[in-house]
């Protein structure tokens, strides 16, 4: 079984994608480490699946190892930029391939939450929602609370602002939909 944790992932990078040159391998490893969080964010934003980050980084490293073999003089920063670019492109490709129909909640859930839910119930739902948010969505929530615009957030993450916004609301709507469903089940009982 392939290792799924971060340390295991790093070990796998250095063993599988070795360029045969120690200096290039070092650069490649440093670039991979710098790009890992970006791969996770791309997997969440474009594919709604954090586990795909491993596939994204694998694909990018394969590409980068060929690149560094051809141009061993390239700096770590340039290599990192290339890896990030490959990750972003691959994530967009996979998102297009798997189709745009991602499972999420309904807009009705948002409207229902805002209009029909009593204050106390709203607070309970909101607490449940905040507890279940993924670390990425929670970070976005914090940055938005701090007053940063979607464009400013996306610029810092080197992503498209509409993709980040869409991913954030997709997760919230999906969670809200699940919460309202479990609420219905409770009512039925």
């Amino acid at each position: 079984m392939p290792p799924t944790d971060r340390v295991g992932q790093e070990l796998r990078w250095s063993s599988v994608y070795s360029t045969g040159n120690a200096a290039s391998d070092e650069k490649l490893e440093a670039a991979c480490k710098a790009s890992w969080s970006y791969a996770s964010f791309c997997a969440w934003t474009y594919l709604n699946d954090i586990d795909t980050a491993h596939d994204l980084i694998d694909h990018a490293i394969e590409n980068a190892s060929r690149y560094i073999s051809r141009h061993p003089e390239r700096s770590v920063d340039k290599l990192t930029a290339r890896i990030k670019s490959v990750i972003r492109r691959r994530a967009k490709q996979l998102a297009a391939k798997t189709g745009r129909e991602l499972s999420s909640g309904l807009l009705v859930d948002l409207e229902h939450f805002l209009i029909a839910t009593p204050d106390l119930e709203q607070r309970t739902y909101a607490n449940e929602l905040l507890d279940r948010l993924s670390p990425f969505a929670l970070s976005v929530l914090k940055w938005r609370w701090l007053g940063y615009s979607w464009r400013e957030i996306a610029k810092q993450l080197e992503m498209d602002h509409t993709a980040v916004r869409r991913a954030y609301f997709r997760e919230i709507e999906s969670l809200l939909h699940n919460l309202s469903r479990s609420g219905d089940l409770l009512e039925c009982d």
Partner: protein
Amino acid sequence: MRLSWRQSSRSQDRFEKEIAQHYQRRVLAGDVVSTGPCPDEDFLRRLAKHSKRLELTDPKVDHAASCPLCVKRLLALRKEYRQRCRIWIVVGVIAGLLLVGVTFFFVIWH
């Protein structure tokens, strides 16, 4: 299912505000875990002004948005910053009106 984002943006914005308020309440009640030491006053001031030079992925930003003490200070600084902005707007409008008045006066006079 496909969502129409243009039509939905208003309800999404409203919802986002609601969630942000709930989040703020939770932080102030001490229900959110914050890690690391509190950042200094200068950092909080820059954060309150939405400085573009700050790295959002900096752990200090995460702490400032999760610590009740920092959040209280941030809210106070934001209020202060908004008031200062309002004062500058009023001063600007008065200066503009004065300039128009003086120009008009000189045009009529000559």
